């Protein structure tokens, strides 16, 4: 199954080419990260769909059509500028980055933790926790730590 960097690359390239919609492989992790980005306002919409286009009606995923299933993201632009400039991976298979709640708090307050640069105003980080894939601030609210997947700015 595709790793996080695949999603990051597709979304970044889509924004750079000023595309309206992108199709990405439909997996639970992809859907989770995209829903975080949608909630934060980077994407206009996240819909299930075909390899051709988004679904007009609800189509259940079956063994026959699973190969063609995609997630369609519609990208957001304002004043000819994309909402998302950079989506970079933090935790890599070669070097996993897992944070406790205190380390998450220090990242938000401008101090680095474990060689990860602090968050700038307007930056988002996606964390994979026991309570699901959450945005960093949501994870702090729920008092859970986890693996830092990616950061978006």
């Amino acid at each position, binding site marked *: 199954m595709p790793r996080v960097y695949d999603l990051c690359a597709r979304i970044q390239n889509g924004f750079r080419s000023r595309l309206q919609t992108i199709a990405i492989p439909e997996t639970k992790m992809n859907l989770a990260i995209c829903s975080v980005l949608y909630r*934060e*306002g*980077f994407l206009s919409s996240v819909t299930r769909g075909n390899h051709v286009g988004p679904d007009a009606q609800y189509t259940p995923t079956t063994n026959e059509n699973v190969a063609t299933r995609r997630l369609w993201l519609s990208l*957001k632009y*304002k004043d000819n*500028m994309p*909402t998302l400039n950079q989506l970079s991976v933090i935790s890599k298979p070669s070097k996993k980055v897992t944070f406790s709640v205190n380390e998450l708090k220090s990242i938000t307050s401008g101090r680095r933790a474990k060689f990860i640069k602090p968050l*700038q*105003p*307007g930056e988002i980080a996606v964390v994979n926790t026991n309570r699901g894939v959450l945005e960093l601030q949501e994870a702090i609210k729920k008092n859970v730590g986890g693996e830092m997947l990616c950061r978006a700015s």
Partner: protein
Amino acid sequence: MLAFQRLLARPLGAAASKTSPAAYACCATRLYATTDSNGARFRQAGLTKENVPRLDKVDSILDFTELSKGKTLDQPKLFPAHRPTEAVMNTVTEIVDTPLTTAEQARLLKKTLVLKRVVNMNGKGKQPSMYALVVVGNGKGLAGYGEGKDEEPSRAIFKATNRAIKNLRFFDRYDDRTISMDIEHKFHATKLELRSRPPGFGCRANHYIHEICRCIGIQDLSGKVRGSRKPMNVIKATFEAFSNQKMPQDIAKMRGKKLADVQSVYYGSH
């Protein structure tokens, strides 16, 4: 006028009117220092609405025109007292295309950061000239830079200053003292890293960046120039970096979020 207003405030206004120069109405524009019955002295006691001096009329005694024209024993001066205006180099004689007045232009912070000798090779030989880069700012967000070249260094600086004033633009600051986010910018071979810092930190960066921040009015900054440190490019890189800043308000607008500045409420330098 001021004396008139002061007089209005005094309770002895009645006394003043007693000594109003109704008697002097015949010699209308003359105002003398007067005393009232109590012995208090007013400098311009008689200044009422009727006795306001008519300044468009020339008075024979009070207005001095051409004091002793040719009545002195000295020889008339052969050379004029003032140099002709064309020869004066220091004043801003050129009209610069800005909405700022000449007084405001004179009050701007001007700093010559680069002054070097450049040479143009021609068929006739080497043609040296001076290149100047001047940074101009008002310390409250307005700043700009200008380059000028001329044979003489002073004239090159003058040209550069005028261009800098023409290129003035407004830079957004956070809390009027620092930048809103950390900036990483690359310009040609110069890579800049600029970081926002808390109040009282000071501007700790390359000396060219320090001068530019002084002109803009940024008091707290930390930065590092990596790669080429050529002065001209460092200055241009800093200006580009500050111009291409993303403000938090714009980001919030793009994403449809509400912006709440917690730091300025708790730690702001107001």
